[in-house]
């Protein structure tokens, strides 16, 4: 021995600091995702919904979803929440006099957490902004379920080769020039489909025209980074009442992505760290050999 330990540790510390600095220097602010130019979307207006659930039935038919009769002892289809047989559901909020319906489905986030989570891009955001699932790339890891702030991706736990079930905005119908089933059948046009930009303008106009009818906010303009499914609620009933979480305006994946990208930007830091580890080890080993000691 003795390898000059102090020197080595000092060298390591310097190298480590340099690596860390490279990481920090790379930690650019992640650019905010914006809605694609061809984006489509949906607008649900709770003041118009009468809770008839026609959209729930139409959604099942359009997507070949089996009935969920668990809550009725097998009598008829009556799902109580989104689940592996149900991509769309009408819920009710009631608090004394206050009452509202609420349509739950995938929000088609502008910066979707689920897409960020998914290892091989099984969940992907298309050009029109719709978030779809591609089974040939899905390992069934269920990280999408952890990531989605709205609790949307559902999972066929009862199957040996399960799929992830979520609203894909009836992409298969849109491809054929049709519109989403739920929007097509709604007798009150409580949920409508259209170009995202048009829907935003429509929603804002409704708020401006009837300020006393609505809760004064369009949900989805920037919540959690924005969603392509927009919501209007009745006056006096907040979106949290309807089950939509208060996410603030930061995209949900932003914190994790900023950190991960800071560390892995251009793979500089890992390569540097590898070089440092290798160099220090090689030096240690050579010093030991020189001192007439065995190699490790």
């Amino acid at each position: 021995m003795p390898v000059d330990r102090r020197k080595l540790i000092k060298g390591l510390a310097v190298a480590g600091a340099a690596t860390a600095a490279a990481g920090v220097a790379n930690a650019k602010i992640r650019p905010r995702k914006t809605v694609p130019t061809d984006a489509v979307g949906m607008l649900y207006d709770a003041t118009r919904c009468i809770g008839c659930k026609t959209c729930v039935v139409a959604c099942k038919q359009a997507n070949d979803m089996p009935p969920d009769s668990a809550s009725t002892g097998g009598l008829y289809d009556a799902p109580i929440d989104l689940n592996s047989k149900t991509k769309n559901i009408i819920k009710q909020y009631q608090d004394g006099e206050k009452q509202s319906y609420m349509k739950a489905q995938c929000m088609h986030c502008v910066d979707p957490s689920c897409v960020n989570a998914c290892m091989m891009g099984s969940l992907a955001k298309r050009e029109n902004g719709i978030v779809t699932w591609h089974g040939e790339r899905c390992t069934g890891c269920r990280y999408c379920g952890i990531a989605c702030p709205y609790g949307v991706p559902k999972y066929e736990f009862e199957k040996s080769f399960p799929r992830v079930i979520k609203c894909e905005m009836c992409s298969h119908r849109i491809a054929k020039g049709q519109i989403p089933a739920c929007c097509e059948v709604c007798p009150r046009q409580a949920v409508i489909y259209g170009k995202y930009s048009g829907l935003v303008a429509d929603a804002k106009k409704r708020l401006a025209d009837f300020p006393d009818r609505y809760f004064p906010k369009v949900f989805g303009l920037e919540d959690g980074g924005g969603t392509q499914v927009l919501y209007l609620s009745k006056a006096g009933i907040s979106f949290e009442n309807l089950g939509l979480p208060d996410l603030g305006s930061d995209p949900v994946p932003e914190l994790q992505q900023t950190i991960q990208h800071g560390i892995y930007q251009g793979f500089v830091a890992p390569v540097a760290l590898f070089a440092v580890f290798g160099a220090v080890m090689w030096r240690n080993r050579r010093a030991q050999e020189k001192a007439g000691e065995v190699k490790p």
Partner: protein
Amino acid sequence: MSAHDRHEAVAGPIWTPFFKVVALIVGITVVLMARRFTLGLGSSTALSDGYPWGLWIAFDVVTGTALGCGGYAMALLVYIFNRGKYHPMVRPALLTSALGYTTAAVAIHLDVGRPLYLYKIPVSPMWWNLNSALLEVAVCVMTYIVVLWLEISPAFFEKWERGPDGFFKKLANTFHPIIDKIMVPLMALGLLLPTMHQSSLGALMLLGGKKVHGLWHTPLLPGLYLLSCVGMGYAVVAFESILSSRTYKRPRETRMLASLAGVTGWVVLIFSGIRLVDIVLRGKAALIFQPTIQSLFFLVEMAAFVVGGLMLVMPAFRNTAAGQFQSAMLVIFAGTLYRIDTYLVAYNPGPNWHYFPSVPEMLITVGVIGLEILAYVVIVKTFPILRGATPAQAAS
């Protein structure tokens, strides 16, 4: 002195009564595993859409790999901080790591819904979503398992080289020199990969956002996971060393463990300090005193970390085998709880969702651990892994 003098296979038969009992348990759980694969996750687990991740991810994978960080922690100490005196402990630590990570890989196959598609990860780099922290973990862990077995492969080669002519001898003669040559980059990789994926295991839950309790959800999660896995790695090395020296009547490494304990203690105390300061700075300290199940788990977890850490730095405890054993157990317990807390206790998908592992879920976990124990016993009794019964002078 060569490596041969330092490590020896443990003498004695493999089929001891203990081994038979463990094998029986594993056999029973294999039936349960078959059931899980044929009937789906719902048949065997308490998982739900609210809690898509449960015991298998939180314990078998996330905690299991952290407990498998002994090889990483020891290599860091010996090769980077140049503490050559711990060298004899590296090989046993590497074996526990290789087994720990391989076991976690088995658990992943049980947990994911479509395990048949896992092979697509290594073969489809064009599909890789580089934004996915889970992809980073998956690729790193897969690579690391290969690296670990290569790092430990000289132990196998040493045995085969002295064995009868044949396939294994040829294998050893061909590859042993190659492995020796690439050992430095291999070990550097063996240090880089855990640094990456252990921190990413913390980063995973950042995406849980508001669903993860404020006492655990912090931008420092990656760093905290890294620091705590190093502490757990040392604790596992101590635990394993004490247990194996007692079971296999090997010389105790009490003195070496005592100085290792000091290192572990400081790592754990620094971890606890950062954790607490971070909570205060983020303005979440009030959460500690709320009467919730989360604050209770937090307090137990922190108490175990701090008490374990203090015991490890106090000479009265760290110089005795009993003290070392107890403090190592405490640190292992604390690190395990920290991971289970982050992934399960701190995770709140909203009202109406509950999760507690089902009996088959727990039994399968037991079976997976049993499998690891069986493999450990077979390997240390066949190959030169543990320190020889005649203690050699430790290098430097």
